[in-house]
């Protein structure tokens, strides 16, 4: 079965808020060096969802083209629509959504479709796919393992970015509890 990414090397999904905030800062040195110190060299990745969400910020056709060129030059895009991956990612994301909804109800309302899809991807490639985000409430413990976080000043505000990976043991534990409680689950 073909893979969206090769499984030997490290990849990090930059979600939409991360791409946006780095775009504002204009310099990703502190973030990238911190991450490299944690996990070594990596490829900065976006998904088609991130591309869509970032490009809709454009106010004109000219801006759209500049944003599009920026994403193309700066990030590698994972192909989510390959036939081999589509069903698998959908299943992984849906199960993740069910566990978040019923096992961690306070977190569910923070988590949107893009986050579930990204979570499904992390679940698909737990060894070497990570996620970089400024939405630190959207990836609950114990499903996601927080590997590193730092604060960074963006204009006058202090914000926190975090690096996550999927925690299979934590997820499986919740998933098994969820299945036992469910009357019917497919």
């Amino acid at each position, binding site marked *: 079965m*073909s893979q969206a990414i090769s499984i030997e090397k490290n990849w990090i999904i930059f979600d939409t808020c991360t791409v*946006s905030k780095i775009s504002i800062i204009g*310099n990703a040195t502190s973030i990238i060096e911190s991450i490299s110190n944690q996990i070594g*060299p*990596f490829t900065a990745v976006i998904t088609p969802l991130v591309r869509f969400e970032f490009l809709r910020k454009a106010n004109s056709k000219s801006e759209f083209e500049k944003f599009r060129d920026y994403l193309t*030059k700066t990030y590698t895009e994972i192909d989510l629509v390959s036939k*081999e991956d589509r069903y698998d990612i959908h299943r992984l994301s849906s199960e993740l959504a069910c566990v978040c909804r019923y096992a961690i109800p306070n977190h569910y309302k923070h988590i949107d479709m893009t986050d579930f899809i990204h979570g499904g991807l992390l679940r698909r490639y737990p060894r070497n796919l990570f996620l970089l985000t400024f939405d630190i409430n*959207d990836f609950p413990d114990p499903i996601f393992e927080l590997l590193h976080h730092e604060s960074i000043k963006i204009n006058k505000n202090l914000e926190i970015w975090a690096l996550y990976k999927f925690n299979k043991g934590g997820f499986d534990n919740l998933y098994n509890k969820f299945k036992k409680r469910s009357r019917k689950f497919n």
Partner: protein
Amino acid sequence: MSNTKKRKKKEPAPWKPVNLEEFNKNTKVISEMFKSDPKRLNESQNNNDDNTE
């Protein structure tokens, strides 16, 4: 340099370690656009979740 040039569907995405200099050079261009528009800057600061904008 494009990272997303057309490739066959069954090929995995090419692994290319982040080149910090190139990354910052590209990002600086976009940053100038954001900084020149204070309204957009404030909107981005206030909304962590891009899906609720």
